[in-house]
């Protein structure tokens, strides 16, 4: 008698393509995935609980540790939420610099994504190319705030420091370099037969289903839903910027790839507009010396490179720390779609799909 039962295998927690520490239990029928169970929490540090016991300014530092490849966007999201609670006006210059930083961060995060995603699938070269350009962005960040990974680059009400002299010119120079590089990545991948074979028709999900599953960011836009927090609920200086929201049609891995590649170009477009139109003026608003928002609660979302990054913060109006601090992590919500996406595909496609939803375990587990 042959044993025809299904085979259960563990992928991870220590697997190079799981982008951190993520464990996926796969139920296989031959080489086809019947079902998948995602097990996480290996990187859980209790950032929400910790934040409820730190004062409002100390939390900025903790937000760095969630999505550590896009720390600046987490900082901006948190600061804007607290500003909303404090009903604080942020100077225009600070909003512009925030926009520049967020978009630089988006490019850096997408560079890391395209590199690792391509490497997971077997295209080694792109990884080296993308990290070369990411390095340029990290240099810009280092000049701005002194750090290269966890920036702590925001303050409630504005910026910690004005941009260094000549920094804006360097940003524009970087844009010029990056323009050609995006085409370079595309030459390597977009029409590559192996790439097409590995990504087209893999993990197809319709727009309605993706919306119901709470997918967000480029992963949702790949399914043809034009949902972008930057356009729908503008924050920072996005209401003054002109940019397009690229959307896919098929909702497969290839379309999600194309959406992100186009986002590179749109981000560069935003950075150019923001840097060239950077207004003069103060960089910090009228922040009270002791930050203690009135009792109340609010939810504020921004578009991080991974998707909708939301903060739900409750202040009790008495203490100097938030009563409740909740992060809506985009990686977590996108990862929820993984079991649905991998069903019926081959084991090798699981790697491609984890790459295509672009997760960071630090943010999934918090």
């Amino acid at each position, binding site marked *: 008698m042959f044993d025809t039962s299904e085979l259960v295998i563990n992928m991870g927690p220590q697997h190079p393509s799981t982008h951190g520490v993520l464990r996926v239990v796969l139920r296989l029928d031959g080489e086809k995935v019947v079902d998948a169970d995602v097990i*996480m*929490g290996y990187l*859980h540090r*209790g950032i*929400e*609980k*910790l934040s409820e*016991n730190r004062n409002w300014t100390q939390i900025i530092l903790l937000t760095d540790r969630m999505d550590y490849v896009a720390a600046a966007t987490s900082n901006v999201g948190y600061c804007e939420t607290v500003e*909303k*609670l404090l*009903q604080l006006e942020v100077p225009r210059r600070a909003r512009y610099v925030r926009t520049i930083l967020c978009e630089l961060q988006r490019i850096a995060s997408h560079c890391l994504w395209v590199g690792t995603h391509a490497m997971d699938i077997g295209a080694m070269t792109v990884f080296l190319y993308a990290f070369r350009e990411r390095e340029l962005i990290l240099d810009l960040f280092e000049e701005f705030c002194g750090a290269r990974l966890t920036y702590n680059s925001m303050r409630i009400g504005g910026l910690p420091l004005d941009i260094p002299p000549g920094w804006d010119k360097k940003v524009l120079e970087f844009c010029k370099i990056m323009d050609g590089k995006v085409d370079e990545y595309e030459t390597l991948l977009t029409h590559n037969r192996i790439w097409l074979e590995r990504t087209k028709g893999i993990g197809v999900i319709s727009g*309605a*289903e993706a*919306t*119901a*599953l*709470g997918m*967000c960011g480029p992963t949702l836009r790949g399914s043809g*839903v034009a*949902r972008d927090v930057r356009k*729908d*609920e503008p924050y920072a200086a996005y209401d003054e910027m002109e940019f397009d929201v690229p959307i896919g049609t098929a909702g497969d891995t290839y379309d999600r790839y194309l959406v992100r590649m186009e986002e590179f170009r749109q981000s560069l477009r935003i950075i150019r507009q923001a840097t060239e139109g950077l207004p003069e003026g103060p960089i910090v608003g009228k922040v009270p010396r002791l930050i203690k928002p009135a*009792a*109340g*609660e*609010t*939810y504020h*979302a921004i578009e991080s490179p991974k998707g*909708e990054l*939301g903060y*739900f913060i*409750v202040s*009790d109006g*008495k203490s100097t720390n938030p*009563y*409740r601090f*909740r992060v*809506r992590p985009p990686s*977590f*919500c996108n990862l*929820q779609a993984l079991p649905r996406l991998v069903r019926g595909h081959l084991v090798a496609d699981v790697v491609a799909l984890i790459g295509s939803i672009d997760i960071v375990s630090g943010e999934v*587990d*918090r």
Partner: protein
Amino acid sequence: MADESEKPPTPPAPAAPKPAAPAARPAAPAAAKPAAGGEAHVPKAAAPTGPPDPPPPADAVIPAFITSLQKVVPGTMLSLYLGDWTVIVPASHVVEAALHLRDVPEGAFDYCSDLTATDWPPRPERFDVIYCLYSTRHRHRVRMKVRVAENQPLASVTGVWTAANWLEREVYDMFGVNFTGHPDRRRILMPDDWQGYPQRKDYPLEGPGELLMENPIDWLKLRQARDEADIE
């Protein structure tokens, strides 16, 4: 002789609570939790009893989906703070309210962007479960809020928004809110055999130790015994 007479008393001290811990564990999720939550928690005098939930000013224009919700679900309360609408619905009508908000054409909240909870221990209905909803068609938001007591069953909204699956698992994991009709109610971030619910306000920041959640006094004794053993 002196060594021998000293040694026997020391092992029982740390060992005595240890058998008690595994014995208490199987029964803990069902039986020990309410007792621990009800008795052990002594809130500070100034502990807040709930969010202010300010009602909307008289001249506020109430969106159409809220007025229709008030007809469908009696007892709905409204709140407007910093431009965000919140509807507070009774826990028994949560699925009805969710379905209404999703399906009513002027609402069309097809996207459950966040589902979380807040713990207000002094209040009898200590948890606020908060649903942050968004409509991809009208591009507007609303928050739906439900107040539940500890161990009070709350119907799951996974049938309304698939996204609620993991989010409810997280709320269960972190607060112990009892979701009924959930397809896969397991812990999600904490290990499966974890005791206690870390995001509750009476859960210590430093973590549970081994016994802390079940018997804080034994836990303190154990820690002292360990410290002494370290010194020796």
